[in-house]
């Protein structure tokens, strides 16, 4: 351990920390703890090459809760010769100061400039983080466009769910990895050993799942390579989850230990991109889940463990897993992040007296017809039973989550949300005797690629605003409601199914001041309007894309048959339900085969 002089003249055993120019910045910004690292379970591999920097394009507190980054950080540091470090998007006060002082973005572990790493990997969660990617590249001093980058600049690699349509960011990345990367980390690290940037890119391009965007220069479009096949981590069920995650010292959004007990969901909700993207279902054995929980609790010091997946209640041995994990320690809280309404009453009973707090239930739509269209196969009685179970169970808060703007939705469907909220309020009064809080969260549906609704139109600004107002007017007094910002939904809809050339829109918006678009206090609709006008794009319409031609399929092969998605779209129109293939008939989505199959606990 090195020593550092303090102002007192005494020496501190904390390494050369911080560098003078960083110390000066940290003295002037809000929450400086975001930029300094030093967390529990942080890994340092000084001087090791290749050096990989992993980034989540949002502020530290949000990025630290991202599991993909934790998985990659552990895989690169613990199972490969490379070193992985982290960098998050600086908050605007810090970003402005860094620009004014000419201090480039640094990584938390070594405090070395990010631009000096060999590979800069971004996990891309959603469209409203795209301008932050440009912000981070710029702050790091890495040239925005791949074709402009020099030999010494890092390879910039994108991954994560938003890669389902990489076109809006394509020219800013050297490569994209499509799908689950765990099984390919060794190959990615090996590719970085090639002697030149071109050779490294060529080696990366040979790895299954890697898509190299067309390398057009200065307005001349280059030829696109073949679409990359989405990778499925076939050994998921035989691989231990992360048990030594980095634990932030600042309060982050989810302050709990996490065990991923299952990946994939075959419930088949037609609006859900994750449900299609992470197929098939793979469950880890209960013994592995319990051992992982024990180890992660010891490594993190948390008093709560979340058993996470897209739909944890569908895990085949959920009762056994919850009871065995809870038995690890007296008073340990075990949480499941998503409850299925059709069995919520049973699930809520599992939590017993020890756990109280608030619960979120997601009916998604308030009328039976609309729920059938989106393949959310629950009926009114099940919804009411679930709400009653929440209040009878002693929970002190209930949030009901809905979407508006779903395909086929009418104004009546939207106002029906008020009816369901009223019924829930009545139950809160009668069953919980007014001691429970009820809130309604309403987001705007944005059609996503590789889902049955990928070719459906976005509802549009006027419709969404009208339905929000109708719902506001119809809600009973005392029910708290929150709506997703329609302006942000317009941007999301413009980018989610954008085509080739849409990068210009993102860059113009960023140059006009857009960043942190997912944060209401920083979202600048005018920057997006200005950029859209310059690019001749209508916000809300997929940018530079013929949706019927599904341009995202030119870059990404999700492994899901287009015919399956089209058939599901047709069934939605007819209001027909499709059963979960785990317990019912195979829906012929095309994912299984070639060693990839559903794996459930016996």
């Amino acid at each position, binding site marked *: 351990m090195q020593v550092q002089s303090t*102002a007192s003249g005494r020496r501190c055993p*904390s390494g050369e920390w911080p560098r003078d120019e960083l110390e000066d910045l940290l003295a002037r910004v809000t929450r400086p703890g975001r930029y*300094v690292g030093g967390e529990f379970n942080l890994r340092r591999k000084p001087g090791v090459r290749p050096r990989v920097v992993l980034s989540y394009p949002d502020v530290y507190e949000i990025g630290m809760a991202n599991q993909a980054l934790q998985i990659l950080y552990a895989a690169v540091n613990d199972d490969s010769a490379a070193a992985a470090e982290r960098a998050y998007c600086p908050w605007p006060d810090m970003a402005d100061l860094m620009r004014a002082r000419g201090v480039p973005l640094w990584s938390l572990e070594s405090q070395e400039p990010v631009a000096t790493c060999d590979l800069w990997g971004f996990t891309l969660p959603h469209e409203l983080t795209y301008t932050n990617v440009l912000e981070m590249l710029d702050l790091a001093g890495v040239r925005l466009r791949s074709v402009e980058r020099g030999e010494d600049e890092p390879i910039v690699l994108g991954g994560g769910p938003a890669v389902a349509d990489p076109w809006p960011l394509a020219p800013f990345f050297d490569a994209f990895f499509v799908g689950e990367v765990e099984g390919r980390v060794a190959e990615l690290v090996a590719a970085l050993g090639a002697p030149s940037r071109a050779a490294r890119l060529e080696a990366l391009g040979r790895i299954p799942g890697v898509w190299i965007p067309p390398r057009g220069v200065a307005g001349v479009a280059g030829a696109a390579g073949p679409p990359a096949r989405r990778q499925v981590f076939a050994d998921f069920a035989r691989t231990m989850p992360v048990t030594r995650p980095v634990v932030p010292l600042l309060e982050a959004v989810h302050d709990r230990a996490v065990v991923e007990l299952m990946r994939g969901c075959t419930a088949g909700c037609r609006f859900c991109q994750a449900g299609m993207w992470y197929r098939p279902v793979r469950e880890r054995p209960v013994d592995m889940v319990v051992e992982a929980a024990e180890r992660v609790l010891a490594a993190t010091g948390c008093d709560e463990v979340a058993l996470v997946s897209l739909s944890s209640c569908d895990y085949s041995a959920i009762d056994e897993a919850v009871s065995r994990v809870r038995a690890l320690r007296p008073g340990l809280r075990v949480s499941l992040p998503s409850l299925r309404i059709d069995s919520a009453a049973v699930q809520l009973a599992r939590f017993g007296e020890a756990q109280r707090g608030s619960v979120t239930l997601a009916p998604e739509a308030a009328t039976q017809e609309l729920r059938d269209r989106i393949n959310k196969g629950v009926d009114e009685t099940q919804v009411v039973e679930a709400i009653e179970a929440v209040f009878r169970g002693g929970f002190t808060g209930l949030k009901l989550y809905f979407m508006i703007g779903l395909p086929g939705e009418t104004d009546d469907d939207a106002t029906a949300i008020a009816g369901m909220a009223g019924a829930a309020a009545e139950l809160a009064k009668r069953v919980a005797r007014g001691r429970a809080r009820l809130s309604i969260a309403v987001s705007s549906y944005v059609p996503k690629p590789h889902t049955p609704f990928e070719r459906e139109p976005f509802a549009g600004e006027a419709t969404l605003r009208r339905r929000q107002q109708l719902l506001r007017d119809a809600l009973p007094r005392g029910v708290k409601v929150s709506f997703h910002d329609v302006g942000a939904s317009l941007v999301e809809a413009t980018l989610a199914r954008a085509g080739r050339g849409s990068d210009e829109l993102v860059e113009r918006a960023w140059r006009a001041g857009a960043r942190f678009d997912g944060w209401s206090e920083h979202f600048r609709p005018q920057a997006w309007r200005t950029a859209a006008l310059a690019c001749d794009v209508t916000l809300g319409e997929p940018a530079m894309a013929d949706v019927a031609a599904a341009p995202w399929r030119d870059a990404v092969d999700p492994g899901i048959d287009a015919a399956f998605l089209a058939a599901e779209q047709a069934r939605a129109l007819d209001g027909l339900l499709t059963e979960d293939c785990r317990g019912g008939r195979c829906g012929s989505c095309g994912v299984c085969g070639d060693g990839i199959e559903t794996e459930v606990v016996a």
Partner: protein
Amino acid sequence: MSHWLLWFGRWGPASYLSHLDTARALQRTFARAGVDLALSQGFRPKVRFSLPLPLPVGAAALEELAVVEVAERAPAPASALCALRAAAPEGLPLSRLAACATHPRPRPVLARYACEVTGDAEALERAAEWFAAQREVMVERVSPKGRRTLDLAKYVKDLAAVAVPVGARLEFAVRHGRDGAARPQEVVDLLARRAGCEPVMHRLTRISVSYEGLPRDTESGGEE
């Protein structure tokens, strides 16, 4: 239940934690070390853990104090300290741990600080000399609770400025009374204004804190 006093430093990355985050990090250290903290009674039990004197964000500290109540099944302090040191994050080194026969209620009475201020060293030295000659220095404190005036001369003593390459290193002590105390930033604001420099503290370090009400056996170091 047993009462412990834990002395720790706060350096490097941990200097940038808030008071609550520092407390949370130390509590998590106990959990990682397998040393159970005692819980309060009531509907929402809280761990019995306190830091008697909050540190400003950005301040390093050489020897801070935490008052801890541990559960009956906690190990002996010596073995607990080994486990806690292994479980602590970098930047929060643990130096001593002492068990107390009674519930300690330490009250800070004097804290010594050092920091650097960028600017004209001579002007800062003159400002420090001016301050030392004053019997009363009234400043206004603005906080979410409102405005109040306080006499810095009453709370700040031994103020000295010494030239360093970037400007001046200030050293001073802050008295803590039942009616409150001065903040290091208020001292720097005042001096920087008089010296015509930017009122930004660099490398603020709390060198020591003296307490009233510490059990006698812990003052010489106690059990480790």
